[in-house]
C-alpha cells in the first residue's frame, strides 16, 4: 500500500489508517509522517484557537505530535486516531496556557472588548470575523466558547478538561456569547 506524502489526505479509510498506525507503532517514521500530514491542520487549528498565538500554536502542534509518537502504543484503536490526537492537543494547549501567567493579565481587562467595533465586524448579514472576536474574549470564556461552540465538546467534558464544575462552564459560555453579542451591537 503506497500512500503519498502530502498534507490533508482526506477520506482515508479505516484500514489505511490502521495500517499507518501499526507501521508507526513499529517505529516507521514515514508512516507517522503520513499521519501527521493527515491531521496537522486540525491539530494546529485547535492549538491556535486555544493559544491565540501563531508561533505558540506551531510549537504546540509539534509538541502534540511528539507526545503522540512517544505514547503511540497506548492508543488501542478503540476510538478514531484523530479523537485520541485531539485530546492530546487540547490537553497540551491547556497545560501550556496555565503555565503562561501573563495571559491572565492580557485578557483580564475587558477594555479590549470595548474596541471590538474597530477590530471585528459582526452582523447577521455580513461575514463574521468570529475567530478574531473570540481571541479578544476573557480567557475562561474564550476556552469554553472554543471547546463548546466551535469544537463541539459537551459541558461535562469541558468541565473535566478545565477542572471546574459544569455550572461554571455554562456561566462562562453565557458570558462569552453575551460579550460577542455586545460586540455585535456596536
Amino acid at each position, binding site marked *: 500500500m503506497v500512500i503519498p506524502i502530502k498534507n*490533508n489526505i482526506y477520506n482515508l479509510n479505516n484500514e489505511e489508517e490502521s495500517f499507518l498506525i501499526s507501521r508507526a507503532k513499529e*517505529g516507521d517514521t514515514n508512516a507517522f509522517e503520513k499521519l501527521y500530514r493527515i491531521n496537522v*491542520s486540525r491539530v494546529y*487549528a485547535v492549538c491556535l484557537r486555544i493559544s491565540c498565538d501563531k508561533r505558540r*500554536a*506551531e510549537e504546540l502542534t509539534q509538541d502534540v*505530535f*511528539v507526545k503522540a509518537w512517544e505514547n503511540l502504543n497506548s492508543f488501542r484503536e478503540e476510538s478514531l486516531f484523530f479523537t485520541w490526537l485531539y485530546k492530546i492537543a487540547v490537553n497540551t494547549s491547556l497545560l501550556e496556557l496555565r503555565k503562561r501567567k501573563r495571559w491572565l493579565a492580557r485578557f483580564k481587562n475587558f477594555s479590549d472588548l470595548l474596541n471590538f467595533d474597530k477590530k471585528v465586524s459582526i452582523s447577521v448579514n455580513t461575514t463574521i470575523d468570529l475567530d478574531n472576536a473570540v481571541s479578544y474574549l476573557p480567557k475562561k470564556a474564550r476556552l469554553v466558547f472554543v471547546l463548546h*461552540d466551535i469544537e463541539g465538546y459537551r459541558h461535562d467534558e469541558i468541565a473535566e478538561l478545565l477542572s471546574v464544575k459544569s455550572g461554571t462552564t455554562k456561566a462562562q*459560555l453565557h458570558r462569552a456569547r453575551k460579550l460577542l453579542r455586545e460586540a455585535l451591537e456596536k
Partner: protein
Amino acid sequence: MKCKEIKYYLSDYADGYLIDEMRDEIKNHLDVCTGCKGYYSDILTIISEAHSLPKEISPSRDLWEGISEKISGKKSPAKIFTIPSEKQYYYGSGGKTLFFKNPRKKRGGWYVIGSAVATVVLGIALGIYFFFQSTTAFWTVEKLAGTPVIGSEELTGYGMLNVGDWLETDSKSRARLKVGMIGEVDVQPESRLRLVETTPAEHRISLDHGKINATIWAPPRLFFVETPSATAIDLGCMYTLEVAEDGSGLLEVTSGWVALQLGNIESLIPSDAMCKTKKSYGPGTPYFKDAGSEFKAALDEFDFGNNKSSALTTVLKEARKEDALSLWHILSKVLDDEKEQTYNRLAELVEIPGGVTFEGIMNGNHDMMDILWESLGYGSRSLWNYL
C-alpha cells in the same frame, strides 16, 4: 419574566438546557417581543457561525522537520503486537504481508451476563440515588480537603447532610455540598453552616460564619442562605458569601444576580458588584468592585456609621456613572433634602427615563423606582418582584 431575564436565559435556551416551564415561557415571550427575538437571532447566528468555522487551519510553515528531529532522537515505540491466533486481519503492503491484532477482543458469554447484571444493578442504584436526592431531606457532601465534620462525625469521603445537621470546617478543611440537583456550594475553611430545609421548591442553609462559593444553575429563588445579618436569595448565579464571627457579611457576585434581604430592607446585587451586611442593620448599599476607595469608605460610613450626612455628601461627590447602582438604592434610604440631593446627582450621572418625575421619586412611587432601575441597565426589578 421581562426582557432582561429572558435574555439572561437565552443562551441556555438555545442549547436546550432549560426546564420545560422556562422554555415555554421564553418561547411565548419570543413570539411577541421583537427585541428579544432579535437578540435570540443574534445568539443563534453566533452559535451557527462558530459551528461553521473551519476545523482545519494550515500552519504557515511545514512543522514536520522539527517533529522529525525530536522523534528521531527518541526511542521508537516498543513493539507490542503479536500475531494473534484467531480473527486475524490481513492487508497487502507493497508486496509484504502484515498481520496485527483485532482491537476489539471477543468476550465470552459469562462476560456478557456479568456486564448485564452489573448494568441493571447500577441502574437500580442510580434510580434510588436520584429518587432520594430529590425527595428526601439531605444533601450529599464531598470532602475536598482536611477533615470536615458533620455533627460530631468526621467526613472521610462522601457523606450526608440531613436537615438540621451542622457542617463545620477547620482551618485546613473544605467540603462541597450538592444542592439537590440544582447546584453546588463549596464550603471554605473555618466555616459553620446548617441545612435548614431542602424541598423541590426551596433549598435553605444557615451560614453561621465562614465562607461559601455558590454555583446555582436552577431557576431563581430556589436557594437561600440565611446569615445573622441578612438572607441571600439566589436569582440564578455564582457568588461568594463570607460571614464573620460577629455576624457581618460580604457578598460578591461573579455571575447573575443575588438579592439580600432583612425584613423590609432589600438590596439587589448584579454581577461584578458587592454588598456588605451587618447585624441589626441588614444589607448595606451594593457597589461595584471597581468603585473608588473614597466612595466605598463613605458608603460604608453611610450604611453602618454614625456620620451619615457627611458620608452621603462624599458618596454623591465621588459617584461615577456606574455607581448609579448605589445611588438608586440610597434613594430608598434617605428623605427630604438628602433624597433630593441624591436624585439630582443621579440625574447628572444618567439620563432619567420618561415616566419618571422628581415628585414621583420624592414621594416614593414604586412604579417610577422600577422604571428608573430598569433604565440603569442592571436588569429588570421584576426579577425580584415577580418571583
